[in-house]
């Protein structure tokens, strides 16, 4: 007599979604609103993160080489620098190349053009892997024999790290709050729908239904609502993101800010929305039904 009736759960779940149309619509709207708000913050955080990563990649420090070092010694020193932990890449420039770079960067306005090459030193441009370990990496490189000096914007690097960490933390806090709010709203919406069916639940319990059997169709209902909400939210997010990007590009604001194309991240957004929608729907239903199982 005893068997798990998945087909029954799915059938009842679908029937329930459509037989309580208004409640279902309200629940889907709530899920859509929460997912779009959550998604917008996530996309903002993602864009900030990508741009900060690019800035981090541009961040380097210069290591000046002892003037008495020969080419052979410089090549050995480069190998030593490359071997230092957290060093991503090392690029050697002669003093002549360094001067040419300065002239190119700041213009041939006489100051750099007339400056003798001897004023500058041969140097390495060093990129790091993890910006959070920037200072310790600089110290490790500067401790090598043959390093005559260095120029490192440690505060700038720390600033990047701080901004990225703050944005990431803010995004996670907002996502957590919105997820909790979504869960609360969906739980209450489904609880309202469930309230009208408490008599059915009481009858089922009195006939000997297990909690799992009673809960099954409600979980399926929540899953369906969550998935419907996720799909609608995805389409809406696509439209909203596209509109915001177009507005930013057209206005010329944030010209240095590189925006991610939605076509590059749609699968990521869809995956997160579907997972979040399904989880919110199923968990919300689970919470909503709990009180009515105490029969």
């Amino acid at each position, binding site marked *: *007599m*005893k068997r798990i009736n998945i087909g029954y759960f799915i059938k009842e779940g679908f029937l329930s979604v459509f037989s309580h149309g208004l409640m279902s619509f309200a629940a889907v709207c709530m899920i859509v609103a929460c997912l779009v708000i959550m998604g917008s913050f996530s996309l903002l955080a993602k864009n900030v993160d990508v741009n900060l990563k690019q800035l981090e990649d541009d961040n380097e420090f210069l290591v000046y080489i002892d003037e008495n070092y020969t080419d052979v010694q410089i090549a050995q020193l480069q190998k030593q620098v490359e071997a230092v932990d957290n060093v991503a890449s090392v690029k050697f420039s002669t003093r002549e190349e360094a001067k040419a770079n300065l002239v190119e960067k700041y213009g041939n306005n006489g100051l750099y053009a007339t400056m003798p090459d001897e004023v500058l030193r041969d140097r390495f441009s060093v990129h790091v892997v993890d910006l959070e370990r920037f200072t310790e990496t600089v110290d490790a490189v500067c401790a090598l024999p043959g390093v005559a000096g260095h120029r490192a914007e440690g505060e700038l690097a720390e600033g990047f790290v701080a901004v990225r960490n703050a944005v990431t933390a803010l995004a996670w806090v907002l996502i957590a709050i919105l997820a909790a709010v979504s869960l609360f709203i969906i739980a209450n919406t489904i609880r309202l729908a469930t309230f009208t069916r408490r008599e059915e639940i009481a009858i089922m319990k009195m*006939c000997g239904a297990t909690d799992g059997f009673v809960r099954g169709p409600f979980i399926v209902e929540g899953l369906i609502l969550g998935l419907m909400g996720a799909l609608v939210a995805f389409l809406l997010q696509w439209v909203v993101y596209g509109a915001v990007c177009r507005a930013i590009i057209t206005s010329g604001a944030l010209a240095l800010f590189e925006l991610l194309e939605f076509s590059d991240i749609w699968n990521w957004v869809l995956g997160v929305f579907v997972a979040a929608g399904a989880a919110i729907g199923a968990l919300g239903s689970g919470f909503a039904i709990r009180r009515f199982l105490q029969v």
Partner: protein
Amino acid sequence: MIRLIDVHKEYDNGTKALKGIDLRIEDGEFVFLVGPSGSGKSTIVKLLTAEAVASQGRVIVNGYNLNNIRRWQIPYMRRTLGVIFQDFRLIDKKTVQGNLEFAMRTIGAGGREMRKRIPYVLDLVGLDGKADAFPNEMSGGEQQRVAIARALVNNPRMIIADEPTGNLDPKRSLEIMTLLERINSMGTTMLVVTHEKDLVNRFSKRVVAIKDGELVRDGQGGYYRV
């Protein structure tokens, strides 16, 4: 089989609903549980269906000790019972067949079992040919027959009927009680909670009377007297 041993029940608001009830009902018995409103009849039903827990004493139903029953065991204990309510508690949007299928499905019955069992039970309660009717298209007596069919459909060892004729006229009440007696004669233990004096006196069954939470009378072939 039911055993209540020195059962007390005190609700959270301090009301003492039961004060040391001792009761034993054997398999196959037909017992009327009578008493005035507020005497503790409904509390006994709640204890027997595990909707409430005794404050003191032991409650044993069909081999389940309800004092230390685990939550997951309660559905299996309830499957040994069929419960009938005064207000029928049918699902209006489902047909008679749908209501019975609903009850059978809750314990995992399959389609073949339903097709076999439901016509038999409907015939037993005198509702042959009413499978496709909705509850609100039926009289009170017929609705109570559907409720009895639902209680019977999972083949319980015992039926607990809580004021089953409370909403019916005397003629329908007699029909329902006769039906319950017939079901009892087929081996199902019957506990009928009622305060309908005429019916109790007419059927000459064992009568257990409670008043103010205490058992005041327990007699075979008895009559209604508290």
